[in-house]
């Protein structure tokens, strides 16, 4: 078994809403490992991610710290650098689609709207991370990757961005002050801007792939 810390704690980005991300790599099911505490991956799945050049493989390769090794080896270091990231366009389209589904849901349903806002934030963060890795080649795995893309950063007022971020933390960590109806309405008025920003990222990713 190998155990790694990764994510915000390895970047020193600590806040009250921060979680501690711990990865456990195991041969098979291990009853000692609580999936609510650990991200549990098999060695086989980790190898697949490395061969795909998956963004999570790049994240682990660049920003993880070994905490425990049953064989004294740093398994991820032994795997070397992941393959080149080849699925940027496909992944950006996937997260754009995720955004459109959340957008459609939030305007047609009156319940679970905080979850839809949380999904909007997830799609924003993930499309930005894929774009940073695949197009501008300055990978950013932080929660705020969408604000760190230079001229391609999300053109959204910070108070609206922080409402979306709060929704994400509420839905995943159950932490924070709930989102008010006024905050939901404020955010809804900005969804078309987010749609346009994502569309442009997808187009730029396609252009980058063609070149």
């Amino acid at each position, binding site marked *: 078994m190998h155990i790694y810390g990764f994510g915000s704690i390895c970047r020193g980005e600590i806040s009250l809403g921060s979680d501690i991300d711990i990865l456990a790599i195991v041969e098979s099911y291990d009853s000692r490992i609580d999936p609510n505490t650990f991200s549990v991956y*098999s060695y086989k799945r980790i190898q697949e991610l490395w061969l795909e050049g998956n963004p999570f493989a790049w994240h682990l390769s660049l920003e993880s710290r070994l905490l425990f090794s049953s064989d004294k080896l740093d398994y991820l270091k032994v795997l070397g650098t992941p393959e080149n990231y080849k699925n940027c366009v496909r992944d950006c389209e996937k997260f754009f689609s995720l955004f459109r589904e959340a957008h459609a849901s939030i305007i047609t349903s009156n319940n679970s709207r905080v979850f839809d806002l949380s999904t909007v934030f997830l799609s924003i963060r993930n499309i930005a991370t894929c774009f940073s890795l695949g197009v501008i080649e300055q990978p950013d795995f932080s929660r705020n990757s969408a604000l760190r893309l230079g001229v391609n950063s999300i053109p959204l007022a910070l108070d609206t961005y922080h409402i979306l971020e709060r929704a994400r933390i509420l839905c995943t960590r159950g932490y924070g002050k709930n989102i008010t109806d006024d905050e939901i309405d404020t955010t809804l008025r900005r969804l078309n801007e987010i749609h346009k920003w994502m569309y442009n990222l997808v187009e730029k990713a396609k252009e980058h792939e063609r070149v």
Partner: protein
Amino acid sequence: MNEFNNRIAAQRQILQIVNRKRWEKEELLGLSSKAIERWVSVNQINPELRLVELIITASGKLFFLANKSQEQISEEYKMISREIADISRAIELEIG
């Protein structure tokens, strides 16, 4: 649709069923264990209710799929997707 987006759609479907009911303080915000704990605590719901048990089971099955290898995923995905659909129907019956 790909599996990642499918899992989010399945979460949304279950949340929309649960949140058809007007909860005293706060709707169920997500299917992570911490979001479920918050919902139970804030609304002072009996954690032993069948509804809570069904939601926790659905959550476990959805998150279980996330880390599977591609080789394992297709058959297992179909089987667990069917189980999640059954649990959704059971939740719908509990909500009434």
